[in-house]
């Protein structure tokens, strides 16, 4: 729950800052910068979740939150590097590739978790660790 609310709050923060940054009075905090900062925050939140939680589902989710952070960062970089012909396509392509890789890894991780659950009845790596 903590994880989800943290993620939600950060998104709110990102959106709010982005809205604030869109106005010309704040040239320092440009919009791509806000996205980048949010991305870093997301990355660290995912890491925090990964460390503190023992449930396998949550572990996979945390890793996806981290991945989301990286992808947001890349998209922000693409926006920063936008030229006359539009945003930089290379980070976009990297994001797409990264998403597919993350999807594959997550699908496998979830399947593995389900398999472990069906054999051992546990959804965590260390039995007895009741912090979910």
């Amino acid at each position, binding site marked *: 729950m903590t994880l989800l609310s943290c993620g939600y709050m950060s998104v709110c923060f990102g959106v709010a800052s982005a809205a604030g940054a869109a106005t010309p009075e704040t040239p320092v905090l440009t919009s791509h910068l806000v996205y980048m*900062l949010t991305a870093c925050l997301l990355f660290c939140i995912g*890491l*925090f979740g990964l460390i503190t939680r023992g449930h396998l589902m949550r572990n996979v989710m945390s890793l996806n939150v981290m991945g989301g952070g990286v992808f947001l960062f890349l998209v922000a970089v693409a926006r920063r*590097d936008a*030229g006359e012909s539009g945003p930089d396509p290379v980070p976009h392509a990297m994001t797409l590739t990264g998403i597919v*890789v993350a999807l594959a890894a997550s699908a496998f991780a979830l399947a593995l978790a389900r398999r472990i659950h069906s*054999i051992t009845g546990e959804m965590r790596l260390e039995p007895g660790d009741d912090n979910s």
Partner: protein
Amino acid sequence: MTRHDATLRRRRRRALLRVRIVVAGAGALALALLLVAAVLELPEGPLGLAEEAAAQLAHTGVDHAVTAVLLNYRSYDTWLEVGVLLLAVMAIFALRGGAHLENVRPAPRRDPLLTWLTRLLIPMLTLTAGYLLWLGKFAPGGAFQAGVVLGAAGAMLRLSGTPSLDRIGDVAIRILLAVGFLAFLVAAVATRLAGLDMLELPPGRAGDIILMVETLATISIATTCAVLVMAMPGAESPPAIAAKDVRKEART
């Protein structure tokens, strides 16, 4: 086990939890600070490859820069990425203890409403997928988007109890799964044999080749997504019962 032991264990667990949160919080915060500082020191840009990519776009056979990067400039990455998807399916097959869908649990009973909805949606989804695939040439879209939509159609068929991939043969499934990877492989070998750089597309025919590769990749991606849903472990029998059985087994 005495009560003292139990109390000690409980206190230990609580202590551990607290330590864990404090340490993780401090660590994540420090890392966040580091990253924020790094971001603030990033050069202003624009820095990337936007201009180069745009300048060569005419020779890539597509009009959309992202598709050009994915399927021409950096097609090698995309190939490996299709390989990752294929690996995910193989890995899930490995988990199931078999490389096919034969013992997938028969689809659940049909729900008339769901069946009707499916009949309505499947053609639409297929059309959308085709559109997305075609769109990739000049706008955001392409094999992955199309493949995922088509895969969703497959998952839908499965949910509604309509036999689909689970009724076609093992060999056919394998071919459908591998065809995307093979398309790139054939392209790579063919370009080498034709005396070009590996995966180099001759500008005149690049568009056709990309469309062909993308179509095949779409098929593979769609099949992969659908199979991932169908072949998830535990799909052989209702998971709750199976888990309980196995747990009982494991204890005895």
